[in-house]
């Protein structure tokens, strides 16, 4: 090591290295905004607090179904389905997208288990994968929001609005975003850049974390986003005054959940189109970002994928935000988000 150091003295490497570090640091800092960092830190602190609140650890029995059947003794409010999968083997950890509790409740893989239960791990190729597809599509929407919120320059005013209930049959996943750009029509290369950003983000393999928080904390996290602040009371009213938050990388967002385990579950990803929506929301025009993606475990030839991509360019039929002034029970944000 010492010989290397003495050599580098002559080569003048330290200066170059310093420059490289500077450049890297700059890139890193520019890719995550202050606001994003604040939200992520708050989320981490709250998660830590909830973990410490568990107190004395109790044991629960977890029976996993399907091959291999196993009976595990886990920790109440600490162990997650992901931890259970780790006892079964790598294959099950990588493959499982979402867990099914007692044959009825879908459960996020990184959410602590509250009680003894039967557990089943669902993946993308089970005989009837409709719920898994929906979970996957919801995750794609969430991650699209994460990418879009960091993709634009600082002088563009950007506020994430929401995404409608995931519907695979509509042909694309969607995120509605308020952008400070008038009549922006993305070029092909801009869409390509967005796709690449999303692929790069997903390849970093962030685990998707989940947290139930109360209303006040949610207000604190989203205090800079007027749209989310507006949605929070409505969401909390339908969910025992709790708001479910999800986090991937530094991005935090509201969603009913569940989501898939990790961002690296996404294989092929394309951001297909960005369309301006006709709404009455104040503060600027709302754009609908649309994309398509496939799980990593599904390999599709480029021709068939091209057909899917082409269909993703058409305006998604999902509910357009803010269009209906009257909010009734069937039309609330939460009921639209229902599984």
């Amino acid at each position, binding site marked *: 090591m010492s010989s290397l150091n003495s050599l580098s003295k002559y080569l003048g490497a330290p200066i170059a290295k310093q420059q490289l570090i500077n450049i890297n640091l700059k890139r890193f800092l520019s890719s995550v905004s202050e606001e994003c960092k604040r939200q992520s830190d708050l989320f981490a602190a709250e998660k830590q607090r909830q973990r410490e609140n568990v107190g004395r650890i109790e044991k629960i029995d977890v029976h996993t179904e399907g091959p291999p059947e196993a009976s595990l003794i886990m920790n109440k409010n600490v162990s997650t389905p992901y931890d259970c999968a780790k006892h079964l083997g790598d294959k099950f950890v990588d493959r499982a997208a979402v867990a099914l509790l007692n044959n009825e409740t879908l459960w996020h893989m990184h959410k602590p288990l509250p009680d003894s239960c039967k557990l089943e791990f669902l993946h*993308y*190729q089970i*005989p*009837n*994968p*409709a719920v898994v*597809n929906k979970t*996957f*599509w919801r995750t794609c929407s969430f991650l699209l929001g994460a990418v879009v919120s960091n993709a634009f320059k600082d002088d563009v005013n950007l506020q994430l609005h929401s995404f409608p209930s995931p519907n*695979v*049959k*509509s*042909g694309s996943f969607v995120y509605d975003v308020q952008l400070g750009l008038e009549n922006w029509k993305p070029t092909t290369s801009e869409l390509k850049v967005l796709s690449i950003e999303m692929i790069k983000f997903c390849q970093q393999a962030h685990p998707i974390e989940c947290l139930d928080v109360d209303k006040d904390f949610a207000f604190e996290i989203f205090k800079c986003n007027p749209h989310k602040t507006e949605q929070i009371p409505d969401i909390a009213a339908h969910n025992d005054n709790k708001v479910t938050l999800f986090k991937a990388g530094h991005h935090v967002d509201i969603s009913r959940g569940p989501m898939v385990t990790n961002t690296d579950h996404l294989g092929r990803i394309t951001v297909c189109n960005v369309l301006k929506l006709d709404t009455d929301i104040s503060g600027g025009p709302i754009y609908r970002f649309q994309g*398509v993606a*496939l*799980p990593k475990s*599904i390999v*599709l030839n480029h021709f*068939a994928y091209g*057909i*899917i991509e*082409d*269909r993703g360019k*058409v305006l998604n039929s999902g509910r357009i935000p803010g269009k209906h002034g009257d909010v009734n029970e069937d039309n609330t944000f939460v009921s639209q988000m229902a599984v």
Partner: protein
Amino acid sequence: MNQADVSKLVSQLKFRVNPRLRKFRNSGGPEERLNWLRKTVTALIKHERIELNYPRADEARMYAERLISDAIRYGDCHKTTMDVADYWIVEKQLIHKLFKVLVPRYEHYNVAYTRLIKVPRVYPGDTLPKAVLELKGNPYPSLLPDTSTNRGIIHNVLLDEAKKAYRQQKYAEIAAKIDAAEEKFSDLKISGKDEKNVSSL
């Protein structure tokens, strides 16, 4: 040039054949190598699915395919083919299976008759790469995930919906064409009537 077309003398196999044969080190030399492979080919025809080391599976696959394709090509009344079958199949009752079961099964195949799949090796265990060699159309459950017949898998859902949307668009186009044609026709009729009126006047 009355030479026969060389490519038609030997039946063409439907997968990539190794240009050089593997030697398989053994004390008995080339003959022993063939004896080994005879056992493997016989086991394949008997059990229809076998798990073994990859090099041996790859080597045995060529002989098994050649045997089946010759059996399909010449039938059971051809002496040379019968001799070859007699050589490659150690358990003689399986010769009946080759001609009565496998030939009818593969008669109309235009793809390979066997499938070679690399499989993970057992850990801890020996480090040789493993493979499964199987005859297609066997009665066992499939080793590969079924991604085409399950229409619920996400890419199938997306493709089905894309197909539906495309059809709808085409139907709309056809309907528009018909409407346009009808309009044209009715216009003609009206103008024809006018002419008639004029002539009657």
